[in-house]
C-alpha cells in the first residue's frame, strides 16, 4: 500500500480564467477560448428557444463570444463565477439585452475566423428539441448536459482505441449502463476470448473510467472540483425532469 500523499489543489480551466479577474494573460485567454469553443452549443439552443431565428441566433452567438474574448475578463465580483455554465448564460443574457443592436453590425464584419462554430449541427440538435415544453434556460441546461456526456463518451472511446482496444470499445461500451437488449455477458465473453468474470470486471472498470473522465470535464467548468457533485446532480435534474 502507498504511503500518505498530500492532496494537491486542482486548477481547473475555469479557475485559471476566473483567477485572472480583470488582468488578462495568455494562459487565462487560452483557457477561456477553450471553454467557449467547447460549450457554445447550449447558448445557441437557448437563443433559438428564446425565439430568435436561425440567423439572429448565429449572429448573437458569434457576437457574444467576440465580445467576451475581446473583454477577456469575467468580472471579479460576479456571483455567477462559481460555475462556467452559470456565468456563460448570465453573460449572454446581459449581452443580448444590452449589446445586440450595437454589436451585431460590427460582428458581421469582424468575426470571420474568430471562433469556428458549426451552426448546422447545432441547428439539427435544436430541431430535435422543437415541440418540447422546455424553457430557454431548460434547453440550455439540457444541451449542456448532453454535450458533456458526448464529450466524455468520445474521450473514453478515443482512449480505448488509442490503447489498441477498438474491439473492446465496440463490444463493451454498450454495457456502461443497463440498457435493454444487451447480449448476455457469457456470450460477450466468448466473443472476446475472456472469462465472463473478466468481462464483468472490465465493464466495471470502464464505468469507473467514464465516471472519472466526466467528472474531470465537469470540474474544468467549476472554480473548485469540490462542486462537481452538485453540478452533476443539477445536470441529472436537467435531463430527467
Amino acid at each position, binding site marked *: *500500500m*502507498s*504511503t*500518505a*500523499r498530500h*492532496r494537491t489543489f486542482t486548477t481547473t480551466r475555469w479557475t485559471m480564467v476566473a483567477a485572472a479577474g480583470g488582468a488578462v494573460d495568455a494562459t487565462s485567454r487560452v483557457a477561456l477560448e477553450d471553454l467557449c469553443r467547447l460549450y457554445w452549443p447550449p447558448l445557441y439552443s437557448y437563443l433559438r428557444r428564446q425565439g430568435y431565428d436561425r440567423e439572429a441566433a448565429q449572429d448573437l452567438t458569434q457576437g457574444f463570444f467576440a465580445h467576451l474574448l475581446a473583454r477577456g475578463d469575467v468580472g471579479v465580483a460576479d456571483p455567477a463565477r462559481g460555475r462556467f455554465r452559470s456565468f456563460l448564460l448570465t453573460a449572454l443574457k446581459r449581452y443580448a439585452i444590452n449589446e445586440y443592436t450595437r454589436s451585431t453590425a460590427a460582428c458581421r464584419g469582424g468575426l470571420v475566423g474568430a471562433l469556428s462554430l458549426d451552426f448546422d449541427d447545432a441547428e439539427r440538435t435544436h430541431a*430535435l428539441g422543437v415541440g418540447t415544453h422546455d424553457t430557454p434556460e431548460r434547453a440550455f441546461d439540457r444541451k449542456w*448536459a*448532453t454535450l458533456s*456526456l*458526448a464529450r*466524455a*463518451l468520445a474521450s473514453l472511446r478515443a482512449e480505448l482505441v488509442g490503447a489498441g482496444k477498438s474491439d473492446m470499445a465496440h463490444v463493451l*461500451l*454498450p454495457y*456502461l*449502463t*443497463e*440498457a*435493454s*437488449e444487451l447480449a448476455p455477458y457469457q456470450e460477450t465473453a466468448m466473443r472476446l476470448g475472456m*472469462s*465472463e*468474470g*473478466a*468481462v*464483468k*470486471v472490465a465493464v*466495471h472498470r470502464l*464505468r*469507473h*473510467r*467514464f*465516471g*472519472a*473522465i*466526466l*467528472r*474531470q470535464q*465537469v*470540474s474544468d467548468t467549476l472554480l473548485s*472540483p*469540490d462542486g*462537481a*457533485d452538485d453540478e*452533476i*446532480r443539477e*445536470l*441529472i435534474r436537467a*435531463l*430527467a425532469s
Partner: protein
Amino acid sequence: MTCVRHPGVAAQGGHCGACLLEIALAAPSEDGAGLDSLEILLPLGSTDDTVVFLARDRWRGGRLVRLKAWRRAVSEDLLADVLDLHQRITALALPATSSSLEAGIDAHGHLYVVSEFRQGVPISSAAASLTAEVVSIAARTCSTTLEALHGAGIVHGAVHGGNVLVHPATSAVTLLDTGMRPLLAGVAGASAEDDRRALAQLMQRLGFSGA
C-alpha cells in the same frame, strides 16, 4: 430505448443520459488506482485471512473509509462476483449495511474492498456496557436487515459479534461484510436459516431472549 428509471430521457450514444451522469456521481473524484488513493490511518483488526484498516480516501474528498484486504489471491471471476454482490446490496439501500465503494485486486492478486466507514464498536466487545434496550435494538435491526437481504437472495454467512457494530452514542447498528464469507470460502451450504440461527445465538450470549 427507454430507461425504466428515467423515462423520457433521450438516449445518448445508446445510453440513458441520466444513468451516465449517475455513474459519474458515484465515481471517485479522480481515476485513482484504487489503493493508491488511500492513506492508512490505523489498523482496525486482523485475522489469519484478513486485515482491516481505517483509511482516508484522497480521491473521495478525503472521507474516512474501511479497507479490508484478504491474504489470498483471487481470480477476476471471483472479483466479478464480489462486485455483483456489492451492487445488489447497494441497491437495497439498507440503513444497517455500509456502502461498498470499491473492490479490486492488488498487485499481489489479493482481494480488497473499500467501504464506507461506520463508527461503532463490535457488539461482542461492548457487551458489558450495553443496556438491555440497546441489545434489543441491535437484535431487531439485524433481524430486519437479514430479512431484507434474504428476500433479495443474499445470505450474510458470517453473523457474529465482530460483524455487528454498535455506535457508542447513537446505538446505531451496522452489519459488516455481508455475503463475503460464502463467496470467498465457497461455503455452499450457507443459508438464511444459518444467519437467523447465528443471530439468535449471538443475542442469547448477550442476554437477549427475544421477548
